[in-house]
């Protein structure tokens, strides 16, 4: 394992922990997007660019978008 990969794993672990400790839903949506970005870097460093692309759009954009929309709906537009 090269040092960059170790750093990426540590980053993913740190953001996953932060995600688990976040209670505010709006922050959770934002943070899950950033967490997805750390995963994208991890997948790229482990030579899985196809998975990285999917994670970038699904984890980075689509999933937080659905959460944000759900929050807006809950709060009555």
């Amino acid at each position: 394992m090269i040092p960059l990969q170790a750093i990426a794993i540590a980053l993913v672990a740190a953001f996953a922990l932060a995600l688990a400790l976040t209670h505010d839903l709006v922050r959770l949506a934002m943070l899950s997007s950033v967490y997805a970005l750390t995963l994208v870097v991890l997948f790229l460093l482990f030579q899985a660019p196809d998975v990285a692309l999917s994670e970038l759009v699904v984890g980075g954009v689509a999933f937080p978008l659905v959460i944000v929309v759900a929050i807006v709906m809950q709060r009555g537009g």
Partner: protein
Amino acid sequence: MTRRLRLALFGASGAGLAALLLWAVAGLQNFGHYHERYGLLLNQVTVGERHTTNVVTAIVFDYRGFDTLGEEFILFASVIWVALLLRDVREPGGRRRDRMTSDPVGLVGIGFAVAVFVIGLYVVAHGPITPGGGFQGGVVLAAAFALAYLAGEYRTYRALTPQPAVDLAEGVGAGGYAVVGIASMLLGSAFLHNFGPLGTAGTLASGGSIPLLNLAVAIEVTGAFVLLFTEFLEELSGTPGAPSE
């Protein structure tokens, strides 16, 4: 259940899970030392047999093409259910008013949307050659439409994604994949067996029927995500009692 009991329960199960995870990770092959026969075989034969330089695409749309058919219909079925559930409860005629953003924001947003759209087309078209393909490119294309909305132009977004066209894309994408499979049966081989000229490896026209399946999936995924996004947006404006923005 008291707090102490819950913590004890979590401690015991958490420690067990951590031990099992560590055991599993320790048993993994080292990075770069892959030994599974199936993967090594495919890495060796794919470029020669299918003329696609992206082995992942060849696996998804050829060697394991039947699995992808199932995956595509999972997406199709879930999106159709969302549409069925949400369209049924929503009162017709949305009350959403257009929220205009400032011109510079709109201009930059539309600029980004166009750029992302082109990247999406690139990712789809180069699926058999470089990382990417119908699934990834399709979501990028859908993100371009979402960006057009975020630029503040709801009217533009609806004009770009008329519902009949989106519904059609959703159906044509899912059905098209099956049609390509049936076409190879009509040509005398097994369902979804590769047909057509294989072309030169590394060019856009390579891989026989792989680009066709790739395109079908791209249309399906784009349609699915745009449909989902539209339904959520409509839900926001059409909820009874919710103030329109």
